[in-house]
């Protein structure tokens, strides 16, 4: 009985359709956003920002993007790191060649470039499904990796892409706190966007396609439209995330920064976090960013003398075991665990 939601009647469609129908949720959410914007910048250390929170925010954005495609539309992709790379290289070239553009414009344009490339590689999804589609997107990953390494124009004939610091309206995004606030704002906007997309007609079309594509076609959803928009929107999100990853987190990168490993990590994130759930993307990214580093540091924090190699082997082993356990015990991911917890709390202490 942590919270009671009876007595909150909805008398209009508007009230029924709002994002957070329960008052407690709204208060909680407002408090949380206020906390993230007003309290966190003052309490967290630079280390925390730069090595945990910032990667977490960016990867969450990418995971949301991938989740729109895999979780909501049911089309698997093992090439999303490459779309992140497209976003990063597009943003780099835009900044380099059109230096008068505002970074926000660059970000959106980079997203559109990534969306275009994503839709191109999404075309096979119209004919093939499941594992076969996975393999087709894997081809996208390898092809784009090859392009990043080969086409020297993309990196302006330098060995690595090294963009100038991000500037917004005369405000340089360079300190950890500024980076954090900037990324948090971007993520907030994109989360709202995603949340609204999936409950609108596009999201419903995606979900219908996911649940049964033949049936979706029968009720009048054009698969070409549903699948390609899913690829486009998803790549857009990933493209923006990729640009942020390169510009804000790494500062300079080589093609290896967007390799297959990252694609697979993104996929794991949404599987562990919860397919078809925006919240799941947050959980998954947190799990992936925080846990390995935490595991790596636990022996040192507890005062064990352990060689670096042993610690990092242990980290990989424990992480692997945790993934297997999670998938075996709760295949719907952390988001499902959260929902179960919430349900239980609602009835606590008198469950029936």
């Amino acid at each position, binding site marked *: 009985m942590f919270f009671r939601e009876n007595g909150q009647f909805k008398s209009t469609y508007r009230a029924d359709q709002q994002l957070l129908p329960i008052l407690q949720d709204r208060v909680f959410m407002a408090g949380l956003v206020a906390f993230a914007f007003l309290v966190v910048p003052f309490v967290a250390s*630079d280390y925390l920002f730069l090595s945990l929170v910032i990667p977490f925010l960016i990867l969450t954005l990418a995971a949301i993007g991938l989740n729109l495609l895999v979780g909501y539309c049911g089309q698997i992709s093992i090439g999303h790191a490459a779309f992140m790379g497209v976003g990063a290289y597009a943003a780099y070239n835009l900044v380099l060649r059109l230096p008068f553009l505002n970074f926000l414009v660059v970000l959106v344009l980079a997203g559109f470039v990534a969306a275009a490339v994503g839709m191109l590689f999404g075309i096979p999804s119209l004919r093939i499904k499941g594992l076969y589609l996975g393999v087709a997107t894997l081809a996208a990953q390898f092809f784009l990796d090859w392009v990043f390494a080969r086409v020297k124009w993309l990196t302006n004939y330098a060995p690595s892409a090294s963009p100038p610091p991000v500037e917004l309206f005369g405000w340089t995004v360079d300190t950890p706190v500024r980076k954090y606030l900037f990324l948090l704002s971007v993520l907030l906007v994109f989360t709202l966007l995603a949340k609204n997309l999936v409950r609108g007609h596009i999201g419903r079309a995606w979900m219908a396609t996911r649940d049964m594509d033949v049936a979706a076609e029968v009720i009048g959803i054009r698969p070409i439209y549903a699948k390609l928009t899913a690829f486009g929107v998803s790549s857009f999100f990933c493209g923006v995330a990729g640009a942020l990853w390169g510009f804000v987190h790494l500062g300079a990168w080589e093609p290896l920064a967007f390799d297959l490993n990252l694609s697979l990590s993104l996929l794991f994130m949404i599987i562990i976090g919860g397919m078809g759930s925006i919240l799941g993307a947050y*959980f998954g990214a947190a799990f992936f960013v925080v846990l390995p580093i935490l595991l790596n540091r636990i022996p040192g924090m507890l005062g064990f003398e352990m060689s*670096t190699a042993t610690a990092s082997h242990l980290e990989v082993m424990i992480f692997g075991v945790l993934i297997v356990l999670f998938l075996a015990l709760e295949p719907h991911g952390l988001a499902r665990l959260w929902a179960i917890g919430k349900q239980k709390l609602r009835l606590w202490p008198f469950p029936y």
Partner: protein
Amino acid sequence: MDKHLKIGLALAALAAAGSLAGEAAYAQQAKEQFFPVLVYRTGPYAPNGVPFANGYVDYLKLVNARDGGINGVKIAFEECETGYATDRGVECYERLKGKGPTGATVFQPLSTGITFALTDKSFGDHIPLITAGYGRADSVDGTVFGWNFPLGGTYWDAADILIQHVGKKEGGVANLKGKKIALVYHDSPYGKEPIALLQERAKMYGYDLILLPVTHPGVEQKATWLQIRQNRPDYVFLWGWGVMNSTAIKEAVATGYPREKMYGVWWSGAEPDVTPAGEGAKGYNALVFLAPAGQGGVHKDIIKYVYDKGQGTGKKEEIGDVLYNRGLTAAMMAVEGVKRAQLKYGKKPLTGQQVRWGLENLAIDDAAIKRLGFTGFMSPIATSCVDHEGGSAAQVHTWDGTKWNVQPGVYHADQQVIKPMIRASAEKYAQEKKLSKRDCAKEAD
């Protein structure tokens, strides 16, 4: 939008609590110079990462055990595993940069990818970055790359020296005309770095350059060596790292390409690269960067002060391996940089900014090399604010099936060709990054 952020932040806060607890213990010790040690003891490049890390750490231990620190300032160090991954490297950097009473002394990531990312951060954090024998070739220019120190040589030097060597083999560089040289390289910024210079030289000498990329991590090279079999190049330059090197030599054996005509860069010429190929590796050549394999005065001290006391980092038999020695010299140069800076700033823990002055005024001459016990394992280095390299000299060594034998003749890269390339490249970087250049004349005192 519902409770997403909360959880993420709660998890982050949890980690925060942990990390803060860890850092509190450090602040209390006062007279210490903190050396962060980025290593990769796991992952595909571990066979090469481990000996380097052992050498690096052993030297730091030696300075503490034998000399009681650097002029009385004890060395504190901590390892952090990067696995050769850029994002983990950045995390390690952030974790270690603030430790010790004065923060991190100098970073040596031993990875080109991590070097790129840290270069970008060094401008704000003011912590020098020693990339001895790797990193960006144009970071020699101290006026643009204020914090990078590619001490002792860059990939452009290495490529130039290899061309000089094969030119000598042919009886003069003029005879290189019409010859075919294949570059088998790791398809990453690291492997691509020498291409610019090899192309420049190809224009001058008229040899054909065949570029054969190998994708990370380099275990699949069948197609590459098929091309070598078809093209029959006169020489093969190998620009690999980790498992790619041993695979390349094995493929050369399988293809029947003579190992005597293969030349590796200094990162492709250590024991882990040749031993997996067994007998087949006999005759393979590679560059020696500063330190060849073997043992000298400093190794005796390490055995006496570190290993005999049970404090050794690695196995005793591996002392004196190529990469072990390279780790040793890397640590030595960092320590010498601190020593030099102490002359100006006093014998106390120094900040990264102060250590940079030391590294910029490094003068390790033959007498100093002898004093340090590095005779035969080191070429003199003298840096300045403008020149962050301090000289480049390399030799060639050949694997005879059991050990590396150094060939006579020390090569120096032709700076006439390289300097203008460095200047142009650094200039472009500064422009892209919108960096203001340092004025070295003003800083001199």
